[in-house]
């Protein structure tokens, strides 16, 4: 149905011409799924956008290639003809359903728009179809929700809207670009299932793009692995997973989080003790109980995993522990001192001993400070180094977190996501803290990078004898790292057990659901 040959796309930037896509071939057969796998920057998205004329030209430039779709070469079509195909015969689903839906338009209008525009459907006709389709993709009460704005939906529902919107013109080919990356694991599983169902029902071709082999393990027929703009390996699912040829493919497979941390001896005395903690917010004149009556201990030297889906209050809990978000009631004892009741001066000295690593390594670094500034700031603040000795210490930290020393004068934006997270880790470690809260510290990263960062954190935790609260929505990741796990749901603790027990004998339904949703179980 779609056959792409010799596709080469380049971008003209300040550093000269960069070949983002280099001589790439792939095809999609009706009724089957082709997956393109690669890290960010591997050119996987660009090659798909290029087909549909969605890359800005300039700086982009399609140098060569052909893309036959239903007897038309997409690359030869003029803008107008291409636009007719977009949204009618080829539809797209994007990564982040929050930013990809127009926040200013009701979802109904957005759904109906392609139908009205491409097929000239009447308003009532379009609305009827939209309602049907919303029901089909599993949106409850479409008659009401059709008048909602995107922000009124949860992430998963939004992605269903996106899929409905893509399907509304009954396209022949659906391109899904990282359709589940921004979603919780349980939702991810549902969306993947939805895509499978639709394909079975409508017999359409799906081209799915992802950085995570585990995600596509259950649905892809054909897999294409891309690295630095080139296709390094291709083959059917079984071949790729069973007999990977290329080292890069093997690396991708190896990166899928699996295995479990070897149990380590745990000291009996807690470093952090949380007692009846409540953190409530006022919103819309209602009280949101983000953290509701939570009690647990973190023992010295252990890694405590905190798992929960978005909205479970896990991030608020992490921030409350460091007094970044004021707690409403309860006690947080850090080494015997109550963090909530401390005076500002004492708090400052305590802050040296407890640090946090955030999810988004871009947002958590001051964009206008170099690595040097970022790392030196805590050292000088807490008078751990003098101004003459600080430079040497900064370089040492960079060594520790695996950053080349010559990066010292660079700004965050000049680094990749993984490197940025290394800076953030370096900053957190600079004060030689005893306790670290890692809030979804690897969730924004590609799987390969995620694996590296997890390894780094594990190593550092051991070297420095750190106590860590590791927050994640991804049980597979937590299993790799944590000694014990706390499951949080709607601000309350659902279950709390050591890792082995939790995975093998989950007590609660909710925990079981989470375990079910771990992708790529077939691989394990």
């Amino acid at each position, binding site marked *: 149905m779609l056959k792409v040959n010799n596709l080469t796309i380049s971008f003209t930037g300040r550093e000269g011409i960069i070949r983002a896509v280099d001589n790439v071939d792939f095809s999609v057969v009706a009724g089957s799924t082709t997956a393109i796998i690669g890290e960010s920057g591997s050119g996987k998205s660009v090659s798909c956008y290029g087909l*549909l004329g*969605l890359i800005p030209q300039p700086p982009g430039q399609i140098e060569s290639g052909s893309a036959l779709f239903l007897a038309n070469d997409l690359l030869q079509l003029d803008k107008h003809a291409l636009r007719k195909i977009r949204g*009618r015969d080829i*539809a797209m689903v994007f990564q982040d359903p929050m930013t*990809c839906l*127009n*926040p200013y338009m009701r979802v109904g209008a957005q759904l109906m728009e392609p139908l009205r*525009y491409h097929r000239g459907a009447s308003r009532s006709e379009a609305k009827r179809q939209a309602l049907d389709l919303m029901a089909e993709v599993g949106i409850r009460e479409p008659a009401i929700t059709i008048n909602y704005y995107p922000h009124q939906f949860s992430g998963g529902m939004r992605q269903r809207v996106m899929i409905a919107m893509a399907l509304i013109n009954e396209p022949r080919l659906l391109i899904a670009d990282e359709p589940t990356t921004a979603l919780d694991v349980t939702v991810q599983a549902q969306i993947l299932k939805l895509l499978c169902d639709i394909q079975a029902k409508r017999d359409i071709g799906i081209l799915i793009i992802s950085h995570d082999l585990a995600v596509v393990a259950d649905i892809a027929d054909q897999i294409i692995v891309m690295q630095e703009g080139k296709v390094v390996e291709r083959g059917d699912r079984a071949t790729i997973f069973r007999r990977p040829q290329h080292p890069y493919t093997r690396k991708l497979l190896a990166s899928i989080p699996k295995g479990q941390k070897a149990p380590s001896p745990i000291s009996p005395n807690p470093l952090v003790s949380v007692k009846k903690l409540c953190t409530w917010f*006022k919103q819309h004149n209602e009280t949101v109980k983000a953290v509701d009556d939570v009690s647990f201990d973190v023992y010295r030297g252990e890694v405590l995993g905190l798992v929960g889906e978005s909205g479970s209050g896990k991030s608020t809990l992490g921030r409350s522990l460091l007094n970044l978000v004021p707690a409403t009631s309860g006690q947080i004892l850090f080494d015997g001192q109550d963090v909530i009741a401390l005076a500002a001066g004492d708090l400052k000295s305590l802050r040296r001993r407890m640090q946090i690593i955030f999810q988004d390594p871009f947002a958590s670094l001051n964009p206008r400070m170099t690595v040097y500034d970022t790392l030196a700031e805590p050292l000088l603040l807490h008078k751990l180094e003098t101004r003459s000795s600080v430079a040497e210490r900064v370089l040492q930290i960079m060594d520790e977190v695996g950053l080349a020393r010559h990066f010292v004068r660079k700004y965050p934006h000049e680094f990749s996501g993984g490197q940025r997270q290394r800076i953030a880790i370096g900053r957190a470690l600079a004060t030689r803290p005893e306790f670290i809260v890692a809030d979804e510290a690897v969730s924004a990263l590609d799987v390969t990078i995620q694996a590296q960062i997890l390894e780094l954190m594990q190593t550092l935790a051991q070297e420095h004898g750190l106590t860590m609260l590791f927050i994640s929505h991804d049980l597979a990741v937590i299993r790799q790292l944590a000694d014990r796990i706390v499951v949080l749901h709607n601000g309350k603790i659902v279950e709390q057990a050591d890792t082995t027990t939790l995975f093998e004998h989950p007590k609660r339904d909710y925990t079981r659901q989470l375990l079910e949703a771990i992708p790529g179980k077939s691989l394990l």
Partner: protein
Amino acid sequence: MWRFIGSRLLQAIPVLLVVITVTFFLIRIAPGGPFSSEKAVIPEVKAALEAQYRLDRPLLKQYIAYLGDLVQGDLGPSFKYPGRSVNELIAAGFPVTAELALYALLVALSIGVGAGVVASLRPNTAQDYIPMSAAMVGICIPSLLLGPLLILIFGIYLDWLPVSGWGDMPGDKILPAVTLGAVYAAYIARLSRAGMLEIMTQDYIRTARAKGMPEWRVVVVHGLRGGLTPVVAFLGPAFAGLLSGSFVVETIFQVPGLGRFYVQAAFNRDYTMILGATVFLSCLIVTFNLVSDVLNAWMNPRLRGRLGSST
């Protein structure tokens, strides 16, 4: 929503009270009184005048009396125009100024949004530079200069439009509106350009394109709404600014608006009129900032529910 509006209005009360108090005493300290004139005033006459306007009482008593009247909506008699109350002067001037400001705002919006959007579509090309340079000049060319220039060109040399007046001759409202709107057109152009530039890189614009929407629809239906949010936020302060800043244009074009009354009052030390106009304009500014915030929230569905919690 209503609670939000209510709390904002409640917050405005102390602001207004301070404004009134400070203004009241400020103008009394300022040199020159309402009755000083080039020909020396005989002391007896001056005393008689001051008695009629309660100026002979202690300042504090005057202040309390003023507040008392104010609560009843009475802004007092004008010093400069005997026989006219300040309420009456404001009632005469404000509709004109409001009309002028409204037209100016329309001019500013149509020129500003047009230029800003056009410029944003092809950034860093002539299509961007030319309207934006014009906007920059627009920001800095004072009405004092633009007004007479427009009059000379359109009123005198071309003889297309009247050189002054308001509602007396057809077309006499065009030049004042354009002159007053020009500065704001320039600001709006810059705001809408920046807003559109940001919005047009959003993911949902890509979605719209992926849906095969024609470019005009992408810009107008999907882009404009979000791209103009900063403009909407600016509208309240802008309208308030237009109302209180229309004096120069009103003078140049002989428009019988509130701005002229206000500035004349300041020059004449027409105490009650200065106070009355200040109070009135403050109320308007509070109102328009509020309207602008509500409008902004209304434009942005994500904010609609949140009005209750923000201040």
